């Protein structure tokens, strides 16, 4: 299970560290024998993710602080992919980022669900957003939570209505 925080700067990323460090932080095992983390396998893993998500940066060694908001968000998302989570909780993943990055994130989420990859169980994405159109565009199923109605009551459930907004 992987969680993408809505609070990118305080919770999501270690801004001072490199792109590669941020992407691999939650799963450093396997990047070298025993307790070691070797730069080469780490850079290779990061380079793959940079390409897959179309992250604009000078390289895996660049500090995340220097990237644009959209690219920072993609680094955070890349960490979930590196972690290889089956269930992704994305909390406001498109807040405060540019339109191009938004589109890329939509496409990525779609691809992750549609094609989990060779020999691996299907993935599920729980996508939280306060922007309704993107939910309509992306979701198989939408649940609306509101504290104004009965405490966090589910007031709408639209099943199997995936389609364009």
């Amino acid at each position: 299970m992987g969680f993408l925080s809505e609070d990118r700067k305080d919770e999501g990323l270690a801004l001072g560290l490199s792109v590669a460090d941020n992407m691999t932080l939650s799963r450093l095992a396997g990047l070298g024998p025993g307790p070691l983390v070797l730069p080469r396998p780490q850079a290779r893993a990061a380079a793959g993710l940079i390409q897959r998500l179309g992250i604009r940066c000078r390289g895996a060694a660049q500090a995340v602080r220097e990237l644009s908001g959209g690219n920072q968000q993609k680094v955070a998302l890349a960490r979930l992919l590196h972690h290889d989570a089956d269930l992704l909780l994305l909390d406001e993943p498109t807040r405060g980022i540019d339109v191009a990055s938004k589109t890329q994130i939509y496409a990525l989420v779609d691809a992750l669900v549609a094609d989990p990859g060779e020999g691996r169980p299907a993935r599920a994405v729980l996508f939280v957003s306060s922007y309704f159109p993107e939910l309509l565009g992306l979701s198989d199923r939408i649940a609306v939570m509101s504290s104004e109605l009965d405490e966090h009551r589910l007031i709408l459930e639209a099943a199997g209505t995936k389609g364009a907004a």
Partner: protein
Amino acid sequence: MKARELLSRGGPFLGLVLVSALFGGLVGPQFFTPGNLELIARQTAIVGMAALGMTLVIASAGIDLSVGSVISLSTVVVALLLRHAASPALAALAAVAAAAVCGLVTGLLVTGLRVVPFIVTLGMMLLVRGAAKGLAEERRIEAPVTWLNDLLRTHAAGVGVLLPTGIWVLLAMALLVAGVLRYTRFGRHLLAIGSNERTARLCGVRVGRCTVAVYAIEAALTGLAGVMQFAKLSVGDPTVAVGLELDVIAAVIIGGGSLTGGRGTVFGTLVGAVLMTVIQIGCSQRGLPNWVQQIVTGGVIVAAVAIDHWRQRAQAA
């Protein structure tokens, strides 16, 4: 971009070259004789050894103000054990272990009580100093002469291979600590905690465990610095190394460490430590009084941090 990257990586080293050149000019070419360079190395060993551990602590956004006290405790432990006819190796090991226990307590207090390390280690500074004085009954402890006393003796006296043994120990530990910081999960976790503790926690880093471990390791290295301090003094002295933690912290900061965490390298730290010794020795060999030396050192610390900030802002823009 290349020039700036070079400046960013080699900044402290560049500073060292400049300051060395300055004193080389002031003192004359004898400043760079092998004997004088060895003197600089020997003078750096104690602060350098303690600064290795401090690099790890500061990388994780911690701080340790009890370094001087732990060093004095360590000298007392060595001296007491030697007096009770323990072997030198055992005495040194016990001193390192005693220091590590101090660090363990610090780490447990920081994580258990959730009190900031500045306050915890301020308390430990007094606590450990008191313990050292109590253990030594407020006196210097004379100890029989053993090979421990030769750790930092000049090679010219016929001990050590090329360099005093203590310098080899320092270099070996430096390589080890640098490797741990750069190439192990523990090291990457320390930097992540220092950069953003909440993120590290959410990424599954066991922050508490890492914190306890880093203070224990740092204190053990400080204990080793204490053994070297004993080698230099040849007595156990509970009043030695008062305020030494500030030199140690300064070495890390000059070397590119940041008190807000997430940064710092062992190479930079050693350069920082050597830089301060060069100022010390350069001033004294030039015949400049102690107050000049202190002003220069203070200026270098402020300049190092100021240049670093300026560079980072330039990079962010």
